């Protein structure tokens, strides 16, 4: 195996990490507000499907991206209404959202199933730096969304830990009663961040459809990326920087399979990679419903608990 193949693999694993990272950062904002988001997979699928349909209809990749983002946001808003205003059980609604998103994406995506993507997001060439050995392809020949996503992770970290709004966000996720008593509008904070979670999951899905997957396939385009993102949220302890690193590791694992395959080596074993989303789903559900594990991992204390001031 030559070095070149590995450089390409590393460069590609960063790209492969982006859909996961976008969805994970969105889910971190969503869950930091105290609302559990098990519906990421559904939001990503809807985002991917909307982006692909828009690309097919209008042929403009950026317009398609915006459509994907908005579609994810719409599902996020729906989740907000059900969990924040109607105070439904967040585990059940999250899982329902996955089923709903999967079904709707299949239904609406049926006419384009198997079609090659009409337009794609192309890598940038940063002033010739892309030709540098090793560093060039890895750092300077990515597309604009890769750079935007990394900037987003930095911005979201600063927002959560250093801004007044971030302080309010964390307070709402830890103790909505305390936040409420200090005059913070708990529902508004939750809506804003649930919406952000939907928009970013939609962005992740759209990026997957427009930059990663060569064609629309309702089974394989997203196939568990949302669950991987959720796992990263949990094991990053709800920290964006760590989630990004985790996403790159996952991206590398997904790409290594591809690279090894050309050499006739099955590593990591394909069967494991295919099982991963399902195993991770079970893991996420176990961890988020175990009080001890939640405390150790630093989950927002009020995660999954609807808030009502009048409850006595």
């Amino acid at each position, binding site marked *: 195996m030559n070095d070149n193949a590995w450089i390409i693999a590393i460069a590609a694993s960063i790209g492969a990490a982006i859909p996961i990272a976008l969805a994970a950062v969105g889910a971190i904002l969503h869950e930091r507000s105290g609302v559990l988001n098990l519906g990421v997979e559904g939001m990503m699928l809807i985002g991917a499907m909307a982006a692909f349909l828009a690309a097919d209809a209008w042929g403009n990749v950026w317009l398609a991206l915006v459509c994907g983002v908005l579609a994810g946001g719409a599902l996020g808003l729906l989740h907000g209404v059900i969990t924040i205003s109607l105070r439904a059980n967040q585990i059940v609604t999250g899982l329902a959202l996955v089923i709903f998103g999967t079904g709707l994406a299949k239904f609406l995506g049926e006419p384009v199933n198997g079609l090659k993507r009409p337009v794609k997001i192309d890598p940038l060439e940063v002033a010739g730096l892309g030709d540098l050995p090793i560093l060039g392809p890895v750092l300077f020949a990515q597309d604009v969304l890769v750079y935007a996503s990394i900037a987003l992770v930095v911005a979201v970290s600063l927002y959560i830990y*250093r*801004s*007044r*709004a971030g*302080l*309010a966000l*964390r*307070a709402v996720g*830890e*103790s909505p*009663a*305390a*936040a*409420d*008593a*200090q*005059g*913070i*509008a708990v529902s508004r904070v939750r809506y804003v961040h649930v919406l952000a979670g939907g928009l970013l999951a939609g962005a992740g899905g759209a990026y997957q459809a427009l930059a990663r997957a060569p064609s629309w396939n309702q089974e394989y385009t997203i196939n568990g990326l949302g669950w991987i993102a959720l796992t990263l949220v949990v094991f990053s302890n709800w920290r964006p920087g760590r989630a990004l690193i985790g996403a790159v590791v996952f991206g590398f694992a997904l790409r290594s399979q591809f690279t090894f395959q050309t050499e006739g080596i099955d590593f990591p074993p394909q069967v494991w990679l295919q099982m991963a989303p399902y195993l991770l789903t079970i893991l996420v559900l176990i961890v988020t419903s175990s009080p*001890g594990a939640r*405390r*150790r991992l630093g989950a927002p*204390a009020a995660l999954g608990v609807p808030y009502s*001031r*009048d409850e*006595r």
Partner: protein
Amino acid sequence: MTDDTTVRPDSGPGAPVLAATGVVKRFPGVVALDDVDVDLRAGEVHTLLGENGAGKSTLASVLCGAYQPEVGTVFRHGRPVELRSPRDGLAHGIAMVHQHFRLVERFTVSENVVLGDPQLGRWLARGAIDDRVASVAETFGLPVDPRARIHDLSVGQRQRVEIVKALYRGADVLLLDDPTADLTPQETEALFVTVRAMTAAGKSVVFISHKLGEVVEISDRVTVMRGGVVTGQVARVDADRHELARLMVGRDIDLDAQQFAAGSPGSPCLIAKGVTVRDGEQTALDAIDLEVRAGEIVGVAGVSGNGQRELADVLAGVLAPTSGVVEVNGQPIRSARAARAAGVAYVPEERLGTGLAPSLTIGENLLLTRRRGALVSRSAARRDAREIIARFEVKAPGPDARCRVLSGGNAQKVLVARELAGDGQAPKVVVASAPTRGLDVGAIEQVRALLDDARRNGAGVLLISEDLDEVLAMADRIVVLYRGRISLEADRASADRGAIGRAMAGIA
């Protein structure tokens, strides 16, 4: 000021800074407040006195904007105001310190204090924030470290943070909801010093309590409530404990009757040796050695959260200790089943859920521990339930009422009756955790009498209570639990309130 008529009635000294008239607030099935009037003057401590469920906290919640009244008006400096949320309350300078603190445990003190402050910059400057919080705290003599995390603080310190929060936001009306409930006597004294410093600075305090002694000590005026209505208002100069008690309960009660004769202890019946309970890194109980003899009451005093719940659960066999043994009359207790078989009666802290099954009827709940056998007799269960309802004046629709519809006090009567007034088989050991908390005076008398009966019938009784007066009135021996260890052990004769208070606070 030479001419009194130039003073506007709503702005002069002594005029109300905050008032409410004709307040009505209902919750499903209850009228919490029924046409209530109250007013608060500048620089005074105005106490709302009443038993649990009298409507004190609900009234305070209306005054701070947490609840909106259905009828009635709140006046600030004589002008009607509409408080739709605590945010509105804070904007009008009104802040409430809830009995269950509204603090973010993972945050630092200063993060909690500045949270929601509209004047805060877009980005947090931690150093400057810490300095500002420290200076507000110092002004009122409230020592707190702005950088400490809430989960590392004691109850008294957390309460100080709550007060600093209110002062930082510029509140001049503070509503303190049962602020002394979880405090040691020393912490209570410190709180009163702070309250006096605040009123001296012109701030007004609404103090909510059901403890007569404290109320007489701190209040300028007292408004007594019962069942959602105001039953009386007295100035401190007129405050007479018996009169206040009568207004509070609605009938004459003898405040000093609740003294019980000491028991005549026999041989040890409940023995705990080296009982340790660990949950992860937390040590809830640390090598506890405890002995309860037949015919005595051992009182466990202490501020809640110092291992009481774990101790009760271990002794009742509900929780297996990490190490150590529990024996009842020589029988090792390793399960709740073994404890029951050895004659242990258990009144847990959590009445509904642990003590009683909320969705079962009163009769069915009695069946859980009575009348063993493969088949259950519903008619016998109903008969038992009717007997208990009549004997203990349980307010319930009937023997088939589900326990979840009972009020806290009535549920507790059913629970205590099941455990202590059983059908013939008297318990050999009683573990009772906060058995009278939240009960009205009549129910408290009945529950205490049942515990006293158990003692006189030769049971060893362990009484875990946050109410130090109750422990002192009933127990033959007293142990104090602090951070999972026994920090003091004393006989009734040698028990000294001051020493017990220090032991509760962990001051050796």
